[in-house]
Structure formats: C-alpha cells, structure tokens
C-alpha cells in the first residue's frame, strides 16, 4: 500500500494544492509562505476522519484553521488522498476525499458538503465513482451500476457508515482509508519529537532485524556512537513492600487493574564517554535526528505518512546525504514529506520530488514542481552560475521580481 498523492485546500492560506507523494518529498519556499500549513492541513484532515461527529463540528470552526485570506475566506476545506494497493485488484487505485464549509458568523454554516470515493483497476483507465454524497448514494460493487441510498447528517462522513455495510464488495478499501495514519515532527525539539522508548523496545522484540538496521543507521550517522540498546526496567519487589507499609489494606493481588510498572530506557555507548549514557543526554540536534529516524523505522511498513518540519535543522550539511540515503533505504512503504530551508539538502533530490511555493502577491499558498520540459534549463543555469541546483533554486526564490519571473517561467506560470 502506498500513498500516491495528497490534496489540501481551503485551509489557512492554502489554495487547493496537490502533491504527488514520492518516497521523499520536499516543500520549499520563503518564510511565512505556507509550508507548515500544508503539513498541518494533512494532520487536520486525518484527525477529522478519526473523530466523532461532535468533534468534527467543533473542528469546522477552529479559528487557527479557517482561511482568513480575503480571496480564500469563502473556500471550503478540501482533502483528497490517492492510494495504490495491488492486493485490492479491481479496486487497487483509490481516490477518496471530502469537503466541508467552515463555520460562519452566528455559529452557523459549518457542514460537510461533499465526499467522494473513486476506484479503478489500472492507472490507464478512468476512475469510477462509488460514492455520491450530494445525492446520498453509494454503489455496492463493480458488478452493479445501481446506487443505493445512504443516510448521513451534516457532520457524518459516509466512511463511518460504509465500514459497517457487510456486503460492500470493497470493504477493504474503506478499512484501508481509515487505517491511514500520520506522524508529525515539529521543528523545535518538543515532547512529540521524543522517542517513544516503549515502541522502540517493542520494535527490538518484534522485529530484531529492523532494530539492527536502525542501530546501523545511528552508528553510520554519528561517528562517536559505537552502540545503542533499549532496556526494560521494572519496579523492584521491595517497592511493593513499601506500598504495603503506607497503604494498610494494599495487596498486589487485590488490585483489579494494575498499572504498568515497567519503564524503558535507551542507552548509547559513546567512544569518548566512560560509561553508557541515556538518550536524553544527547544534544538537542542529535535527539531530534534520532527521533526522526526512529519514527521512520518504526512506521516504515505501515500505511503511514511521516511529515517533518525543517528536516535539516540541527543537521550539519556534511551529514545530509547520509541521512537522506538512510531514510530512502529504510522508509519502506511509508512516505516522508518535509519542509526545509536548506539548499544543500535539496541538491540531493530529483526535481520531481521538490515542490516550490508559488510566488504571488496575494498571500495565498500553493506548491508546484519545476516543469519537466524546463528541468534541463534550470540545471544548466545553475551550472553556469557555479551553483548547485539547490542553491540556484533558493536564489530564485529570493523575493526579487526578476528571479520570481524566472522561477515562474520554470514552473509554467
């Protein structure tokens, strides 16, 4: 199973923007353009799918998500995702999406306005519609052209109902969409960037080969780290005696739900330090890189998208190629979308993997590739200027009317 594309629109300052998702996809632009908004838009959409109706109604009025740009303020939120799962045979190419109107003044207006599910057997054929929300109809299987009725309220996704229809021929498609998950890594080192030691321990136990690959990745990137391990520690039995002494009627056996008394710790051996150190003793930058890699390794075989804000922050340029190679080799069926301000990182990616913030004066954000037909022009111009392609692209993004003109022509605008 792989994600093929993601479309987000009507979110903060985002125009409808479609990204063809590669194993590694980069978003680049000037500051305050809308890169993070695209990542947040995906996070928002995935949360919307998993929430109940009550929470969805509230999400339709979230002030940090509603578009405030004058030219986008009436745009509905749009999310669309395309998958490919060969095991689903005649339904193997999947396009699912939904759209809702944001809350207006007077606590009104918010409601789901559209939802669609299109399937096809091959990329050379057209998608066939299996869900028409506007008509409140769905199709049971490929073998019938008849549509059945479906009852939905204004905050209810058809996805919720279809998953409970037993004779639906493409039930696996619905399950697959609902299983789609996301990991988000913020820019700064925060709690959600820390390594979940328990997950890491589980990886070691359930998939020792993958754990070894992770160990190899860390030892390849960090010259001074010579080994890494995760261990489980448990409460010592004498602690139970301590409880018994303070809580007079406490008995281990009498507790109907015993809390997990285990903790997990990641240890590293640094060749320049005289004893093993805990993960938390690494520098901030190293911890973040470690966390990003751990997330990728832990989620590489799942129906999973990883989004990382500023992948290259805190990474020395000399490590960038190594890091990208390791990610590429180990991401498996997962996909990574990241933002960056680093031209040295961009220079290692194919141009089709780079989405550039489209220059405009209206504060709206949308991202596009360099046109295939213009790639050679861009590469030659970079060389003529004595620059890498990454450096040259960032030079063109420099908010100067002449370079903007050049960039627009390369993007076909």
């Amino acid at each position, binding site marked *: 199973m792989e994600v093929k594309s993601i479309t987000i629109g009507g979110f903060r300052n985002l125009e409808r923007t479609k990204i063809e998702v590669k*194993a590694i996809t980069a978003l680049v632009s000037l500051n305050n353009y809308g890169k993070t908004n695209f990542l947040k838009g995906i996070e928002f959409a995935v949360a919307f799918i998993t929430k109940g109706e009550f929470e969805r109604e509230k999400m339709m009025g979230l002030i940090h998500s509603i578009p405030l740009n004058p030219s986008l303020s009436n745009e509905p939120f749009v999310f669309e995702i395309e998958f490919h799962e060969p095991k689903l045979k005649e339904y193997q190419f999947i396009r699912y999406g939904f759209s809702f109107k944001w809350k207006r003044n007077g606590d009104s207006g918010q409601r789901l306005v559209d939802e669609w599910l299109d399937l096809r057997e091959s990329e050379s054929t057209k998608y066939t519609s299996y869900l028409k929300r506007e008509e409140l109809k769905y199709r049971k299987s490929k073998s019938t052209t008849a549509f059945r009725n479906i009852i939905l309220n204004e905050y209810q996704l058809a996805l919720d109902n279809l998953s409970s229809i037993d004779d639906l021929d493409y039930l696996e498609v619905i399950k697959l969409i609902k299983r789609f998950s996301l990991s988000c890594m913020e820019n700064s080192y925060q709690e959600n960037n820390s390594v979940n030691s328990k997950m890491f321990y589980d990886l070691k136990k359930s998939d020792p080969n993958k754990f*070894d690959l992770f160990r*190899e990745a860390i*030892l*390849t990137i960090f*010259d001074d780290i010579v080994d890494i391990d995760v261990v489980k520690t448990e409460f010592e039995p004498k602690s139970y005696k301590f409880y018994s002494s303070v809580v007079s009627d406490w008995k281990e056996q009498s507790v109907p739900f015993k809390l997990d008394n285990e903790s997990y710790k990641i240890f590293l051996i640094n060749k320049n330090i005289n004893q093993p150190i805990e993960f938390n003793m690494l520098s901030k930058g190293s911890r973040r890189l470690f966390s990003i890699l751990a997330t990728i390794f832990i989620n590489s075989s799942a129906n999973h998208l990883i989004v990382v804000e500023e992948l290259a922050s805190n990474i020395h*340029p*000399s490590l*960038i*190629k*190594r890091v*990208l*190679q390791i990610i*590429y080799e180990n991401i498996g069926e997962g996909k990574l979308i990241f933002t960056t301000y680093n031209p*040295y990182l961009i*220079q*290692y*990616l*194919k141009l089709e993997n780079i989405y550039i913030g489209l220059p405009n004066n209206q504060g709206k954000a949308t991202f596009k590739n360099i046109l295939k037909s213009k790639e050679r022009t861009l*590469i030659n111009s*970079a*060389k003529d*200027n*004595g*620059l*890498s*392609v*990454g*450096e040259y692209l960032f030079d063109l993004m420099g908010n100067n009317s002449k370079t903007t003109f050049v960039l627009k022509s390369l993007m076909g605008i």
Partner: protein
Amino acid sequence: MEGHIDSGVAFIFEGETEQVFYEALFYYFNGKNRNYLLSQKFDEKINEVIYYSQSSFRNIIIRTKTIGTITQIANTAQWFKNSCIKQYENIKWTIFLCYDTDSYKEDITMFYEDDWKNLRRKLRSPYIEVIDLAASSMIEDLFLLDYAGICNYLKIETQLIPKAGNGKQTLKNFFRRNGKIYHEGERSSDFILSLNLETIINKSNLNLQSIGKNLFP
C-alpha cells in the same frame, strides 16, 4: 613547497570514499617506485594540504579536490584554474576525473547527466591532459574485486560475495550479515587499507596503472 615544480597532477573525486581509495593507491604506487618520495604539506598560501612526489630528477605536485555537500562540481573547473594553473604557471597538468558514470541515476544524488562531460569541456586546454577513471560502477564495485580481502577484513572464511543490488548495497549487506557496518568516507580507510590493491588494479577495467605512471614516472 619551495623549489621548482616540473609537472602537476590533479585528482577530482566524486566523493570521500573515492578520495580515500585513490590516496591509498598513491602510496601503493609509491611503494612500487622508491625513487620517489611522496609527502604531504600544508600550503598556507593556498590553504590546502598538498601532495608532492619528488625524485632526484623530478618534482611533481599533486592536487586533490573532493566534491561534497558544499563543494560543487559546478565550481570545480574554477578551483583548478585558480588554485592549480595560476599558482604553478607554465607546467604541464594531468587531471584524473574519478567518478561513476551512473551516479546521476541514483535516488539520492547531487549529480546530473553530463556533469562530468561539462567539467571535462571546461578543463580542456592544449597543455592539460584529462583522464577519466570512470565506469558505470560504484567505487564499492572496485572493492568487491578483492573478495578475499573483504572476507579477511571481516575475519571470515574466504567466500564469494552474493550480489544484493548495486556495489554499495552488496557490500553493506555482506558486512551486515557478518556483524559489521560498512562505513563510507574517511571511516572506510581501515577497510580500504586492508584490501589487496594489486588484485583490484589487475582485475579492474579502469586504467589505474596510469596513476602510477603519472605520479612516479
């Protein structure tokens, strides 16, 4: 370096691992011709470490450039003009371009098709000979020519190395299977120095002997 320089040899490497390997070859070929002394000195004016190959009859300067994250192939010709030709006027130069012709096809790469062809075009001059040490294979494919040396380094019985994708993947996989990690760049130096370079030179399709002929004529 004080004194007269008779000729210059420049090496432009695709990456750090190539640099380590080819520098090991410098010493290998020097071992075959003891009439020359190979030395390294830091040149404060140029701000680089420079090799010299000296005999009673001849002084050869050896300059190296490795393309990395910051150093670009796009400005390598400029480096050669400013840092080699201008610094040592009126000497004959031979330039070795050490690269994999297919590296632009890799998934993570800073190279594009024709990069090396364009570099060669920029370097072209009547007094400069450009030699391509290039094939459609990775530097690791050269290492794999000495499979016995690799097994010896891993402290295992000599055996053929099963192919697992490209040269780098094959080597990584074989190291992994035998409980070690294959490192690239400077960290590969222990491994590279343990290889039998003569075996590699004899088995390789590249004209590696031309290095010895130019550095220690």
